[in-house]
Structures are given as structure tokens and as C-alpha cells.
């Protein structure tokens, strides 16, 4: 029995969601508090993993853990609702690929507004447009816009399909006592406190993380002295599904404005207000509506759905692993909204952590594998913070000299390509390449292209049997060995010997060139046809080339020939054994 409930038709039911099924109003769902037998236990009940916070990151972590060999997860949330207001709306290609692996990507993409074009305006004129995914041959678009409450709702629906996950609403962590074997948590509910014993705790409880505060830890960095107004409006507007960004427009002089399209005829408008703006005043409809009217012009009907005034900081914790407590998402690091690097990076944290935690819990990897979570995601956070800080400094110049240069760049950008490269209205989220990860096996043979050890593997159109498929859908949730064959090759028998022995699941994929008709593959090997040759091109692969992919679809090693001892050594390294 799951501890979470909503109004009909969801009550007490586990069901599979298809794109055709109508969505509930996720913002209005209230999940009742249900008393758990743990609250009456004589000694604290034991749970392998407690995830704190049922936001996008906590939900993704819980679903991912359930996917990694069926880890049992208890998810605690202090509230009884999903996100109020659209909040994070831009979900990047890599995040969609993670959602695909978690079994809810199709719903996200079906509902979301796909986009890849951004347009930049300076004062009253367009400056330039950029394309975030100029090549075809990828299943997922560069971005979708989707209100956070849909993302959380779809992840929650997915979580409810998984028997490994239990969710307890109105359960706030009010005490935490970590030791070397686990963590004792005190949980406060409407019916009083109770205690739990967890082997591991994932703190995904947001910017003002309660777990972080209880442990006396801080997230430190730079606070930006600027205020922004977010307004969601519903209207029928003729604008295309593109990201439009204005520097110093006539309708909002001296500041910046951002316009995004969301599903349900909802539009996000983001107005820079400056540090001196009064947040309470600026939130009032009589202040907000004229600003929107100035942007849209007269004669456009709209209704105001949600308004928020926010400030932000670029910050992070010094470390994300503190013994048996692991911090993820906004609890661990914060960025400005420019670049959509908050929720996207948090979901990448969750996926980086899930497979490692699962292997440790299953006794297949030593605890020190979790140090690599820190070693990989701290530099990723720094990359996001760097990009986010640079964008913010361009958008909101802090000195006269900075503003002079920014405006000069914008003036030159109309006819100089180099200046367009300098315009920075947000460097939009791309996943970090974990270049310096201790889990990578360095190349011993030359390769070209972007798919270096540490890179998230790229997608490509393929064929499996008679049916078209996407490469990424054939990978993930387990290690995968991807071996490229020549037109007349048979899959090497040596592949099969690698699938057994280590106790760590390894999927075997043999890639055939377009049009090849190989004999049936030995048992355990999946043959996939590289129908357009794009996978080989993107991976700089030749017959014999072999890639080892992690359960999170990142490259951890590659070779020009299949050599079982080297594959075993790379697997050992990628699981913290070497």
C-alpha cells in the first residue's frame, strides 16, 4: 500500500499513463498524510535509502533507485502538494533522455512545448537567432518547456507504479544523527515524531535544505543584487515556440525581459526589476498587468495565473557527500535561472548517484564509489555556476564599463558573427562531460570527436530487428558494451564471456553497419543496425571499436579492439574496485 493518495481517479490505483489520458490538475492535488506502522515501531524501522524531498530531484532519485536493480526507497516530504506555480520550466535534451530511462519521458515530451531556437533583441530590433540543436538524428529536442508541476506529477505517477517506492507526505525530517553505519532520522508528522534508521540518506530538499541546516552545513557563494518578476499568463498569442530575450527593450527600458511558451496556452514572462524594486509592491496585479500590457500591446487578452518576485545566488556546498548523507539538486548547489541549469543539473545529480548507491547497497561496489559522486558532480556544479554567473554578469552589468561593453557587443552583433558569440542571454543547459572522473579509463588509442571518457553518450537512429529505434533506448540502467562490427563480421564470442563473472550486469550490443545482414547473434548479444551510419560517425567508430557505457549512459572507456581483460579492468575501475 502506498502512502500517497490523490483525488479520483488516482486513489488507490496503480495505472500506466499514456499520452492520451487526461492529466489531473497537479497543482491542486492534496496528498493525505497516512500513519505508517513505522510510527508505532518499538525500535526505529530500517530503510536502505531515505530520500528527503519529493521535488523533481527527489522523485527522480527515488524512481532511478527503483530502476537500479529494485532498490527499496522511502521518500519523505514535509508538504502535501506538488509545486505551486510553473517554477522550473525548461527541461533539456539530456534530462528528457534521463526521463526516458526512468519510464516517463514520452509523457513529458507529449505534453511539453519542444523548442530549439532562441532569439535575442536589443532595444527595438532583433540582433540574432541561435539554434540549440542544429543536427537531426536525435530522438529528443534540445528543450521542452513544461511546468514543474507536470514534471513532478509525471514523476510521481511513475513512482506510484513502482512497488519499491513508498512516499510519506507531511513527514518532515527534524533531526539527523549520522554514524559510520547509517543515519538515524527523527521525523515530525501531524501526529508527532518518530524515528527511522536509514543506511543512506539522499537530501534533495531544495535551496533551503532542512537536512543541510540540521547538519550545520552551508551552501556558499555569490548573491546577486537584482530582483526579477516572473509572471505566467494565459493567452492565445501568435508568438512561435521560441525563447525570446530582450536587452533594454522600449517596453521595459534599461532592463531585460524573457518570454517562453508553456503548454496549455500559458506564457512565462520574466522581467528584470533591479535591486531597488519592492517585492511586495511588484507582485500586485495592478503593477504586473501594465508591464505585460506594455510587452504585448493593446488588444491582446490575457489572464494572470501566477506571479513571483525572486532573487538568486550562485552557490554550492563544499562537498556533496557527507558520509552516509548525500546532497543533490538545489540543496547542494544553486544557480541563476539564466541557462536552465537548476532543475536540469539536479536531475543529473540524481542519476549520477542512483546507480552508484544501488551497487553499494547490493554489495557489488565498495562505499568509496560514492566519493566519485562528489568528484563528478562538484565540477559539474562549478561548470553550471560559471556559465550561470557569466550570463548574469552580461544580462545585469555591475559597472558602467561592463554595460558599455555589453551594449557595444549587442550593437556589433547585428553584422559581426564574433560579437554574436559574445552575446550571453544564458548558456543553455548541456550535461557536464565528466572529464576528470576517477571512474574513467583514459584512451590508449587516438579518437576524435566529443564522445571522450566522461561524456554522456549521444543518440542516433538505429534499427532493432525490423523496427526503427533510438540508440539511447538500448542503453542505461546497466553497464553496456557497445561493439562496432564490419559488414562481414560476426559478433565476437569474447563478448559473451564478459557478461558473466563480475556480478555486475553488462548489456552486450553489437552494432552492424547499414544494410549488413549478419548471421543470428549468439545468445545474450543484441544486434542493432546503424541505419544512417550516424552512431559510428558520432562515436568516431570503425569495425572493432568498442565503448563501455555506465548505467547513466556516460562513456567510461573505449578501445579500437575488443580486449576482454581491458574491459574487465575498466569495469572494475568504473565501479570503484580499482
Amino acid at each position, binding site marked *: 500500500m502506498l502512502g500517497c493518495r490523490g483525488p479520483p481517479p488516482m486513489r488507490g490505483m496503480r495505472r500506466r499513463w499514456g499520452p492520451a489520458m487526461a492529466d489531473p490538475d497537479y497543482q491542486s492535488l492534496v496528498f493525505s498524510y497516512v500513519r505508517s506502522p513505522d510510527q508505532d515501531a518499538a525500535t526505529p524501522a530500517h530503510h536502505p535509502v531515505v530520500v528527503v524531498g519529493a521535488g523533481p530531484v527527489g522523485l527522480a532519485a527515488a524512481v532511478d533507485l527503483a530502476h537500479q536493480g529494485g532498490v527499496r526507497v522511502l521518500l519523505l516530504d514535509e508538504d502535501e502538494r506538488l509545486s505551486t506555480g510553473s517554477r522550473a520550466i525548461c527541461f533539456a535534451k539530456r534530462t528528457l533522455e534521463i526521463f526516458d530511462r526512468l519510464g516517463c519521458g514520452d509523457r513529458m515530451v507529449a505534453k511539453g512545448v519542444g523548442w530549439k531556437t532562441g532569439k535575442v533583441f536589443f532595444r527595438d530590433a532583433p540582433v540574432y537567432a541561435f539554434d540549440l540543436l542544429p543536427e537531426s538524428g536525435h530522438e529528443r529536442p534540445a528543450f521542452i518547456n513544461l511546468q514543474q508541476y507536470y514534471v513532478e506529477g509525471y514523476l510521481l505517477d511513475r513512482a506510484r507504479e513502482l512497488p519499491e517506492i513508498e512516499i510519506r507526505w507531511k513527514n518532515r525530517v527534524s533531526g539527523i544523527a549520522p554514524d559510520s553505519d547509517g543515519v538515524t532520522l527523527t521525523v515530525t508528522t501531524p501526529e508527532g515524531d518518530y524515528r527511522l534508521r536509514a543506511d543512506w540518506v539522499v537530501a534533495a530538499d531544495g535551496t533551503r535544505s532542512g537536512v543541510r541546516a540540521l547538519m550545520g552545513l552551508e551552501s556558499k557563494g555569490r548573491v546577486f543584487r537584482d530582483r526579477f518578476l516572473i509572471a505566467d499568463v494565459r493567452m492565445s498569442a501568435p508568438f512561435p515556440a521560441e525563447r525570446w530575450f530582450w536587452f533594454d527593450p522600449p517596453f521595459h527600458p534599461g532592463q531585460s525581459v524573457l518570454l517562453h511558451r508553456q503548454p496549455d496556452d500559458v506564457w512565462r514572462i520574466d522581467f528584470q526589476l533591479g535591486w531597488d524594486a519592492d517585492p511586495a509592491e511588484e507582485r500586485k496585479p495592478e503593477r504586473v498587468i501594465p508591464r505585460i500590457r506594455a510587452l504585448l500591446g493593446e488588444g491582446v487578452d490575457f489572464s494572470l495565473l501566477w506571479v513571483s518576485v525572486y532573487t538568486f545566488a550562485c552557490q554550492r556546498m563544499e562537498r556533496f557527500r557527507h558520509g552516509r548523507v548525500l546532497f543533490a539538486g538545489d540543496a547542494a548547489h544553486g544557480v541563476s535561472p539564466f541557462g536552465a541549469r537548476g532543475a536540469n543539473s539536479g536531475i543529473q545529480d540524481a542519476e549520477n548517484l542512483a546507480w552508484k548507491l544501488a551497487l553499494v547497497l547490493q554489495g557489488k561496489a565498495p562505499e568509496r564509489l560514492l566519493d566519485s559522486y562528489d568528484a563528478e558532480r562538484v565540477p559539474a556544479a562549478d561548470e553550471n555556476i560559471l556559465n550561470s554567473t*557569466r550570463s548574469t554578469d552580461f544580462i545585469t552589468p555591475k*559597472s558602467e564599463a*561592463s554595460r558599455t561593453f555589453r551594449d557595444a557587443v549587442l*550593437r556589433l552583433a547585428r553584422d559581426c558573427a564574433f560579437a554574436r558569440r559574445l552575446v*550571453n542571454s544564458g548558456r543553455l543547459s548541456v550535461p557536464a562531460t565528466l572529464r576528470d572522473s576517477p571512474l574513467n579509463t583514459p584512451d590508449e588509442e587516438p579518437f576524435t570527436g566529443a564522445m571522450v571518457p566522461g561524456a554522456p553518450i549521444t543518440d542516433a537512429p538505429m534499427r532493432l530487428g525490423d523496427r526503427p529505434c533510438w540508440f539511447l533506448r538500448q542503453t542505461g540502467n546497466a553497464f553496456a558494451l557497445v561493439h562496432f562490427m564490419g559488414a562481414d563480421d560476426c559478433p565476437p564470442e569474447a563478448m559473451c564471456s564478459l557478461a558473466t563473472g563480475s556480478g555486475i550486469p553488462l548489456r552486450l550490443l553489437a552494432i552492424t553497419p547499414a544494410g549488413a545482414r549478419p548471421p543470428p547473434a549468439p545468445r545474450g548479444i543484441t544486434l542493432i543496425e546503424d541505419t544512417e551510419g550516424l552512431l559510428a560517425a558520432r562515436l568516431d567508430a570503425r569495425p572493432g571499436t568498442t565503448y563501455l557505457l555506465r548505467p547513466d549512459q556516460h562513456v567510461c572507456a573505449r578501445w579500437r579492439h575488443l580486449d576482454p581483460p581491458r574491459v574487465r579492468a575498466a569495469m572494475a575501475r568504473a565501479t570503484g574496485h580499482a
Partner: protein
Amino acid sequence: MPTLNTEPNIADADAFYEALIDMHRDLTPEQSAAANAALILLLANQIGDLDLLRQAMAKARASVATAAD
């Protein structure tokens, strides 16, 4: 005659821009203007070619003249 390159030519453009803005940190507007003048002179000397410099000057002036400031 060589032609002014207006295509991207700096590998890490964002890092360059950050360094440029950092150069002005804690300077007064007068100091910033003076530092910019010094920087232009240094870069002009590095380029060396007067034809290129004249093209750059024309482009810079035109960017101001056409923008309705």
C-alpha cells in the same frame, strides 16, 4: 589588402569576456575609460596592419552611428 576578421576567432569567448570585465573591477569610470584606451593601443600595436585597423575603426564608428542612442 587584408580583410578584418569578424568571424569568431577566440576559442573560449565567454572566458575572454569575463577577463575583459574583470579588468575593470573596482575602477572609476574615468579609470575604466583610460584602461580601455590603453588596451586599444596595445592591441592595435599587436595587430600592426594599418589597413586592418582602419577597417576596425570604421566598423566601430558605424556601430554607434547606426544605433539610435
